[in-house]
Every structure is written in C-alpha cells, then in structure tokens.
C-alpha cells in the first residue's frame, strides 16, 4: 500500500493479474470475516478494510443449466458454484456430461490459459 491511491491499481485488476498467474484470489475483512467475491475496495455494507487471500479451489455446484446449441454443436454447462470459502460465482463446467452433473456435487477450480486471457472453469473434484 503506497498511501497514494492514484498510483494503485483497482481490486478488479489485482484479481485478473493473479488469475493470469494461476491463482484464484478472494478478499475478506482484515482480521477475519465473511469472504467475498467479486473484488471490492471495501467490504460491502460495513466498509471494512479488506485483505486478499488464496482460495482453496474447492467448491460445490449450486445450480446448473445445459445451454442447448444447434446440432451438431453440443450443449454446454453454465454453473453457479459456491466456493468452500462462501462466495458464489458463475463459471463453465468441464469434464462433465448431463448425466454426470448434479447440484451439490464437489468441484475443483481449474485455471487454463486461453486466447482471451486465463479462463476459470470447474471440474469434478478428484480429477484435478
């Protein structure tokens, strides 16, 4: 922390830069409290100062839809995943088909390089 706010990058850019290095970051109030995502400059509601920490990558499938495409393109999965630390985020699922996926199943985060920057997807836990 430089003390000169103008020279810092914002929390969104900090998070993106970490993801590009293969790390999934979350924030929590300094000294403890509810973890949060997406990144903010202060805790929502309380305005408390925040610190970064690395997420475990463990998650549970909270909801799931298979988005149909015109054949022969296959349906793809859009999910809401609940991270072990609490926050929820929207992500693609990999390594699953319609029969193998169910709400409540354990997932693991996977960060892969992509043409448009790093991609965060989730796969069944145990296959990471």
């Amino acid at each position, binding site marked *: 922390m430089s003390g000169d706010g103008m020279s810092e990058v914002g929390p969104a850019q900090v998070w993106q830069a970490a993801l590009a290095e293969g790390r999934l970051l979350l924030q929590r109030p300094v000294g403890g409290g509810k973890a949060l995502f997406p990144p903010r400059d202060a805790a929502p509601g309380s305005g408390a100062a925040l610190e970064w920490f690395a997420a475990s990558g463990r998650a549970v499938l909270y909801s799931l839809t298979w988005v149909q495409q015109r054949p022969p393109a296959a349906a793809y999965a859009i999910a809401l995943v609940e991270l072990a630390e609490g926050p929820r*985020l929207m992500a693609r699922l990999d390594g699953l088909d319609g029969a193998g996926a169910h709400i409540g199943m354990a997932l693991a985060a996977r960060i892969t390089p992509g043409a448009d920057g790093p991609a965060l997807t989730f796969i069944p836990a145990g296959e990471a």
Partner: protein
Amino acid sequence: MADRFPRGRVAIRGLATYGLGECPGHTPIEMAARAIRLALADAGLGVAAIDGLFVCLADDLFAGLSLAQYLGLHPRFTDNNRTGGASFFSHLATACLMLEAGYLDCAVIAYGSNQRSGGGKLSTPARPDSWDALAAPPYPLAYYALAAARHAHQYGTTRAQLAEVAVAARGWAMGNPEAFARTPLAIADCLAARMVATPLCVRDCCLVTDGAAALVLTRMAEARDGPALPVPVLGVAAATWYNSLSQAEDITTTAAAESGARAMAMAGVSPAQIDVLQLYDAFTINTILFLEDLGFCAKGEGGAFVEGGRIGPGGSLPVNTNGGGLSCCHPGMYGLFTMVEAARQIRGSAATPVPGARIALAHGNGGTLSAQATALFGHPDTV
C-alpha cells in the same frame, strides 16, 4: 417515516397499447408516440397537457430528451430511469409523488419497441455483469434457467408445473384479440417442445414481439373529469438487492418479497384481497417465484400452487389475463403492459374481464430477476 405514499391521490386517467405482435415499418419512438396519442385521446387530453415525461427505450440512452423533442414538448421533468423491464414502476413511483406534490400536473409513462420486425433478436443493450461475463452466459436466458434448476432442486418443482404457467397464459391469450400467440397449447406440447437451457424449453420463454404502451396520470381529483373510469394508484414500491443473480443470497427468493410487502402496506391490502394479478413472466419460473415472493403461497409451493389450471381462465386466481409475456407480447421490456392490463381489469375493459375486480396487482421484473417492483391499483370506491 419512509415509504409514505399518497394512496389513491393519483390515478391512471388514460391508457393505450399499440402495435402489439408485429408492427413493421416503425421505429420504437414512433410506436411510443403513437401509444401516447392514443392514451391522451382515452384521457380526453391534448399533448400540450403533458408536463412530465417518463420513458425507457432499449435503443436510446437519452429517450426522455428524444421523446420531448419528438412530441414538441418542453416538459418540467423527464426521466428515463433504467432498471430493465421494471423501469416503468420506478417511473410510476416518481410520477405519483411529483403529481401529488404539485410539481407536475400530467405525467405520461411510455414505451415502444420494434424488437420483432426490427430483426427478431432480443433488442437489449443489457449484458452480463463483467464477472459473470467470464463464463459467457447467454443473457438473460442462463440466469432464469439457473433459478429454475435450483428451484427444482430445493423444492421439487417439475417441468409439468412450469408448463402449467405457459398453458394458463395461453388460455388467457386465446381470449385476447391483441395477443400474439393464440393457438391452443397443452402441457404435453410444452413437455415435447425444444429444450433451450435446462430445465427451460422454448414454451417456458417469453415471446419476441413488437409493442408499445402508454399511461396518462393526473391527480385523482382531475382524473375524475376524464371520459373513462379513473384507476387510482394505491401503492408502488421498487426493490433492489443486486444486479447479477449470481450474487443473490438465495436465487429462489427475489426482491419481490420486499417490493410486494411494501406496496401492499402502502395500499393497505393483503394478498387475499387482491382480485387479479399481472406478473412479469419473462419465463415460466418468474410466475412461480413471484406468486411465492408476493405471498400468494409459501416459498417452494409455487409449482403445486399453479397445478390444475388454478391461474388460468376458470381458475380461482386470475394471473396474466392478457396472456402475459409468454403469449400476449414481450417487446423486450414488458413491465408497462402489466400496468395497462391491471388498469383495464379495474375499468372492466380487459379482453377477458374478471367480474367485480376492485384491486389489481402489477409486478415488474428487470435484468436477471434483479429489479423487482410492485404496484397496486384500485377501483375509485377503494379510495
């Protein structure tokens, strides 16, 4: 002292729809202006009477300014507040308070869209929030599908129960000459329909149509001078909990639980006293969520509640009596049409009037189950 509302002090004096279904060869603002002229005629007023202009157009960030220019008005106030399809409810709240305070004398709320004949694709500039965009979800479809999937997981809601909502809407639409989709629809047709995003099939999704609507509002005392029965506004409340559904505490409970309770408190009514409901049904799951959140059944029981044709023609609770966004029209932002149909039910001029309707509820939805807003309208003898 928050949530004070001038119950019954402001009324809908004129209303109109225009170009529902297909309206080729027109721009959105042309359609909105046509609806305004029809609503003014209905109100027995000229365009010069308007001093407050409330509008939301999908294709024009500065729609309030554009519409003033188009109509040749110098309004005292313009507002193009955008909360998605619920925008018009925020307009209504502002207009009622400004009219009651004497800041305005005559407010118009208007909308127009050529979404269908202008290309047949959703004409919304809205996008997923930047964090959800990392997953590139189809917007807004994926969000409603996720809510429906979670509702099915938590409460056992079935595809056949979702289909009940579509079939009820179609039943009402078949009695409404203005409705776009009027061919018979059965539960079995829905279950056999093309899947779009599980568990939602194409029959669970709203129409893509053109359409315009307008309301003319004045203080109740002046509205009584108009040619039609004035429809007083008993309460209106908008609630904001989040923009992206991803950030909901529980995606099976919407901010309608707040907006509905607040609007009903302003109106001094409970669900049992409401005769007819117009709920923003962008998808079949909406109707189930809103029946629960507005207090017409317990959370999780919406699927069972709509079974057996309960909300269709001949059922015990009339919902979406024009056919709704599923079967009447959905030009992109449907909210204003719920208010028009609610007012028509109070006047007794709806295509399928609910006998003796004295209190009507309209509920708006915007974004991805994000903006929620509820309005109560009454017969003049309820004031």
